[in-house]
């Protein structure tokens, strides 16, 4: 048994205090300790991007971070973007423009896009593809995702 660490982290604007083992991954902490299962795990190797969350506003792979590294910081997961009856404009766009099929990659793509669209309100197609090139999607062929991002940018500019 390793020593527990007293972790204090703000996730989706809620402060959590938990005693955790130092080697617990952020993805496991989010999913199992605080029940935010919207963050998906596809590879646990930092490759697929499904587990992407925002760490002080920047996209990170939660399968590559230990939970304790977020001590004193802010984490945002897909659950922090919008709710089912009050979608974030990016979520709204993915809903309207068929930006998903199985939806397993979707949370990681949405979180990746939040800072991207804030910094690039009017991105080109190439910029969009580059922005999500670290998020694998096996279902869509990406085209409807790209369309959804364009629509999201439009919505966020409005």
């Amino acid at each position: 048994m390793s020593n527990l660490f007293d972790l204090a982290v703000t996730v989706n604007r809620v402060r959590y205090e938990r005693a955790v083992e130092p080697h617990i991954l952020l993805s496991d902490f989010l999913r199992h300790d605080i029940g935010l299962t919207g963050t998906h795990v596809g590879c646990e190797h930092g490759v697929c991007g499904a587990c992407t969350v925002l760490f002080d506003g920047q996209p990170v792979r939660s399968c590559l971070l230990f939970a304790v590294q977020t001590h004193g910081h802010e984490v945002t997961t897909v659950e922090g973007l919008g709710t089912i009856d009050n979608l974030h404009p990016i979520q709204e766009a993915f809903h309207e423009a068929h930006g998903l099929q199985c939806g397993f990659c979707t949370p990681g793509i949405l979180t990746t896009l939040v800072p991207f669209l804030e910094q690039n309100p009017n991105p080109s197609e190439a910029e969009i593809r580059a922005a999500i090139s670290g998020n694998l999607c096996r279902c869509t062929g990406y085209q409807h995702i790209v369309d959804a991002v364009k629509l999201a940018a439009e919505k966020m500019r409005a």
Partner: protein
Amino acid sequence: MFKVMKTQSNPSLIGSRVPRSDARAKVCGTEKFIADYSLPGMLHVAVIRSPVPCGELRGSNRQYLETLPGVVATVFAEDIPGENCVPIVWRDMPALATGKAKYAGEPVGLIGAETAEAARRALAMAKLDIHPLQAVTDPEKARDNDALKVYGEDNVFSHLVIRRGNIEKAFAEAAAVVEGTYRTPYQEHAYLEPQGMLAIPEGDGSITVMGSMQCPFYVQSAVATVLGLPLAKVRVIQAATGGAFGGKEDVPSLVATQAALIAWKTGRPARLIYSREEDIISMSKRHPAVIHYRSAADSAGRLLAVEADYILDGGAYATLSPVVLWRSIVHSVGPYRCPNVKVDARAVATNRVPCGAFRGFGSPQILFAVECQMDQLAAKLGVEPAEIRRRNLLAVGDATATGQILKNSVGSLETLEKALAAAGVAPSKEAGEGRRAGRGMSTIFYGMGLGAGGVHLARTGATVQILQDGSAIFSVGTTEMGQGMRTVLGQIVAEELGIAFNCVHMTPTDTSRVPDSGPTVASRSTTMSGNALLRACAPLRETLLHVAAGILEAESANLVLTQGKVETRGTNPPRAVELQKVIDECFRRRECLASEGWYRTEGTTFDRATGQGDAYVAYAWATNIVDIEVDTETGVVEVMRIVAAHDVGRAVNLSGVEGQIEGGTVQGMGYALLEEILCQDGIIQNSEFGLYHIPTAEDAPKIEPIVVEKPFDGGPFGAKGFGEQPLMGIAPAIANAVADAIGIRFSELPITPERVLAALNSKTAI
């Protein structure tokens, strides 16, 4: 909670772009995949696997494992209460290997532990006493006389033929003959969600299994077999499934037995989520193939004869190989008229991971050969690739290679002409410094549904219920795995009953709700479940119209059910009553507003001796045109653009159809250029996403989907199944484009930069 707004109209729901009914939950992260379920007292399962492709099992350190912290139970073959068998097409695959392990990664034992970590730690300590034996790891040598026997007398699971006309005479008289040997690799499904199952002992002697799967009825049968339970005591519920593509057709049965055995042994819920690595080493793949193919044409460019002899590597157990092989031979001449055909196809056994279903199901391999051959015939005869296809494409009244006369819904030529028009003029071959451009095409077809090869499973059930507030629920036996079935079927029910789309809800697919409906494969869910739902809706419509007739004092034959109301037809002005009022009246009168539908396909035939028969009820058709550029310095093939025209009968959801085209096309591109499982001496070397590359958003080209609609009278609203087709013809179109660009023909996939560079340097393909 999201409030259901009852909009009273469904203006032309069929053919619309209505958003997916699961999109809200999926963008919010609230959709529940199997790894998101956890129960009090739930155990975590780890699987002990054979490290060698072939070995004699002599024992394990299970007693020691059971003393480790957190470990609650282990299960090995000798503990299995029922039959040690995962039934698929045949019954040759055990749930846990006993006596001999036949492939590296084969499950041998199970560990159930209090936490996932304890299970992982115990797994790291697990030791098998296994004596390695010589293995058959090269499928091309599996049929050698001196090869060790993995299956039967000759390592052949299945041998299928087509015998039609007289090929000797045709080859002798031909104006052009082209011959080639084609090699296609494994393809990994790479669904983003790994396999996973949760088994829950119910305390009354029954068991519930939930998980990621395409085929709940297969899972039910496997769990019942292994636990020795009647089917009635095994309930299987599909959880949200994060991609499948065939990879969750047969193998989830194996995963389910693993969770179920630990649950049975301990009386506690048990969950098993595969790591990506164990998923890649042990789950099914697309069959590697080696294809010898010879075709002949006359001077007018008409295909005269085809001779093909090929093998698919089935791996260590038969699983789905016999039926994969069957689909493959039916597609072995492509969408062309050809009077003389001789095909011999074999699925062979090796000590490698069992191969199974993957989008296209044996057809992408053979179509790669067919379409590369067509371009070479065209070149030999001096006609354009499009022209040779135009001259040979099947049309209504023609016979396929299996002798089936096509009666309707043949959009082959239309996809060709529309794709050509959209593609326009081919780009110049000179694409700048160190770059050569090329264009390639393919025309293909897809036999929809299970066809004669799976006729015993070609049935589906559905139930529909209208609730008191005017909403409706429906259940089907096929599954949603991302392909959009739930949305399309919701559209069909909403359209039929005049109920708003967002008031129609599909319940999770559950073996206790609908009769065994066969598998969700073969692009069959829209058509099969759609037809079953139409049949389930029919008596409900009748009841609604009958009751409305009473309210409106009209004949029910003169009433129409549309857009939230029932209207008289032919009266001026029309009289109408709101659907909700009719439903209220039905409830007041205690009418039954629940109904079942059942659908089975009829009329397919197949003669095994000649390979002749009406193989499928209908076919989808497609033409792909691909523009590429080859970087002659690096060997990289960049796909610039793909025009993909598909005859789908009728698009129920236009965006959904486009999504299927785009997703399948990009998977086909991965198959052509990137994806390769490196298997050395029967052991997979690249078992992670960092080493098995699938296309990213930057690799994927611009895709221009074109939807052609030649309605099929046996499909709901004319729809045909086609979800697999987008993948099937991309690899040959890319190979043809590469040949166009640099004059080198690749007959082996994938066309990697290394292969291109090596070929450019030696000026011949390798």
